[in-house]
């Protein structure tokens, strides 16, 4: 079974560029709504657990962002009510709501991005650009936690040796300074051993290649096509101005020309694509299971 997370990282990257890029340049309420719900459902399906705290904090952020606009911005023809001689308009309120929905939608999408694009996938993408870069990143990913645990060990040892036994800030700071300085020495020392080990294994002898566990399969190609075609349609509609929507001074209606409808359907498809893929795989899995 090959779900969304198992796709080739480069394909995933292209998907995220498409889905976030198109959502950022449109204030069309349909697209924003599709983006918000698409990313929300994707997160729930991909993470397979409910993050009540996350949703609550995003809801709070949504409310704040939605309220700020009508309070500060008084453009618009439909006055709802007046507070302190400032009119609160329907247009400004709706604009606030949709702007907030766009931001929250993108935040949800980025949340799935961090969930899906783990360090080794990003490494793979950068490794395509340069094998050296990927090695450096990989070494850094190893080195940083190693140094952190060593620092912790040194701190514990020094505590149990009672070297900095005073309980005052000056002594603690002095102790920390010493630990920091010895960690620099430790890093250099170990850097030499690592460099030896690299030389012993032939680093720098030939032009390096970059190996990875990812490969590009038929499924990746299909996903890529399913990602590029709707994006092209959306860009066409946006460029032609068919999916435009204005809030001020009065709201324009939602365009329902054939191209605009194609654009909405395309965006909906793009936005729910991870969910569709997961469902498809799940159905396939159930079907295959039934044969066992």
């Amino acid at each position: 079974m090959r779900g969304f997370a198992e796709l080739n990282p480069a394909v995933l990257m292209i998907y995220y560029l498409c889905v976030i890029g198109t959502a950022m340049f449109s204030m069309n309420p349909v697209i924003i709504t599709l983006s918000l719900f698409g990313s929300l459902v994707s997160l729930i399906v991909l993470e397979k657990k409910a993050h009540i705290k996350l949703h609550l904090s995003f809801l709070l952020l949504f409310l704040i962002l939605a309220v700020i606009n009508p309070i500060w911005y008084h453009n618009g023809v439909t006055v709802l009510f007046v507070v302190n001689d400032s009119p609160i308009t329907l247009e400004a309120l709706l604009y606030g709501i949709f702007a907030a929905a766009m931001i929250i939608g993108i935040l949800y999408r980025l949340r799935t991005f961090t969930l899906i694009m783990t360090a080794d996938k990003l490494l793979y993408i950068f490794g395509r650009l340069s094998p050296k870069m990927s090695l450096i990143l990989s070494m850094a990913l190893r080195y940083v936690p190693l140094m952190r645990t060593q620092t912790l060990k040194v701190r514990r040892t020094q505590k149990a040796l009672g070297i900095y036994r005073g309980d005052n800030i000056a002594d603690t700071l002095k102790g920390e300074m010493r630990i920091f300085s010895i960690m620099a020495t430790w890093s250099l020392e170990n850097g030499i051993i690592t460099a030896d080990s690299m030389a012993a294994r032939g680093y720098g002898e030939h032009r390096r290649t970059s190996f990875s566990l990812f490969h590009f399969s038929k499924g990746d190609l299909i996903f890529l096509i399913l990602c590029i075609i709707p994006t092209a349609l959306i860009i066409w509609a946006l460029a032609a101005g068919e999916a435009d929507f204005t809030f001020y001074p009065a709201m324009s209606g939602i365009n329902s020309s054939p191209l605009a409808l194609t654009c909405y359907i395309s965006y909906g498809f793009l936005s729910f694509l991870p969910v569709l893929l997961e469902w498809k795989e799940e159905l396939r899995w159930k079907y295959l299971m039934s044969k066992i």
Partner: protein
Amino acid sequence: MEILDVKNLSFTYPKASFPVLSNISLSVKEGEFVAICGATGSGKSTLLRLLKPELSPLGDVSGNVSFCGKPVSECSSASDIGFVMQDPEHQIVTDKVWHELSFGLENMGLPQSSIARRTAEMACYFGIEDKFDKNISELSGGQKQLINLASVMVTEPNLLILDEPTAQLDPITASDFINTVKKLNRELSLTVIIAEHRLEEIIPVCDRLIIIDGGRIIESGAPKDVISQIYDKQEIMCAMPAAARISALLGEKNCALTVREGRELIRSYKNDKKAEQTTISRKTEEKAVLEFKDVYFRYERSLPDVLRGLSFKVYESEIFCILGGNGSGKTTTLGIASGIMKQYAGSVLIFGKKIKDYKNQSLYNECIALLPQDIQTVFLRNTVLEELYNADVDISSLPFDLSPHLDKHPYDLSGGEQQLVALAKVLALKPKILLLDEPTKGLDAASKLRIMSLMRDLTASGMTIVTVTHDVEFAAGIADRCALFFRGEIVSDAPPQEFFSANSFYTTAASRITRGHFENAVTAESVAELCKLNGKRSSDV
């Protein structure tokens, strides 16, 4: 076929007044398993590094090294000679197991498909398939060293050089590692040159043993012949397997190497006279200096218990040895006793007072001190002198001599010397209870003996020592009481003679040799003494 040929090799480090290696001549046949032993500073590492051009130290070299008939420096690729170093942690370059395995192949510029095949093959051969996409930081020391070996083997070297590869591993993992190397040698006819301190497992499997002393090869040949030539060299003999040491002490011409041969040897001795049973007479009113009462500990709320109802007492001026497998909670126990970690239930009493009642770091003030396993973490300064000066150590009153090392960086010292400097630092705190975590890790046999005699002197002057160790031979030689740790509690606790003769597997080689023949003989010295006392069976004379 000769794979490696060393002729009259001498080497002098820059600015050094005398050579580390002089006139070394050595030739190794394809498929041979060669073990090199010698004390720290005898030049083993330098010799091994001179065989691998990428790692050769700078200095004055004379003589030549040829590999497969050509000078080694003209060797076509780094991947022809594999090299595994001592520290499992720092040879690792990347963060993932699969990336580490593929590193050497990437350097060779191989295409994706052959890298995929070779790494897969190697992971299967070494049985590390389930770790393939793990982070290396999640692995244990032994697994890391295995990854190092696998990632060297993946480039298919003709010669494998290992420089003390098991020094940082516990005995069980170490013996697994040696067996893997032996398997490579046997199944692939891989030529192996290995330098080691711990010879118990190596000697029975190697084809040739080379003894280096003072930069010269003093003996070379089949292990049996070599060892019987050096019976009188104490500093080298102390590293040999127990069976060999017994043979040496008895002056046997035919040297025994394994436990099996050792048993045959002692069977030729009578067993009428028994060893004197030493018992500890403990007065009931004697007060414990350190006491654990029903201690429970876990690292995180969601993780399982590491200590489950641990209770024990340590009495004044005794050496209490805690033995046990990896992850059984030994180090955690010391962490709790030294107040670095806190139990969630139960209590720890030091001199009858709870740890939390020691306010303001008074626990560390002339009371308790811990020397950790990773001895490097003790050092904070750039020279030994600074280190000692800042810890208020009176250098002249130390029970050992550190004067040759005062100007060196602590990291440049050997494991044994580091241990001594760390001890000097700890002793300046005048602790009444000293906690030692694996004090023999990475030490050669001679340094081990020095630490042991030092520990005895310290307890004679009233200090109490609690030590955690994997090293059964060390525990048998030093402890007043030994305790076996299993799943977070102590399952047995007794004086070493009784403890090791009651255990059948988790015991010293000497005890395995004498099982059923002599009772209560757990060290090579005591076995030899018993043999001498009883005399040979008349039929064999």
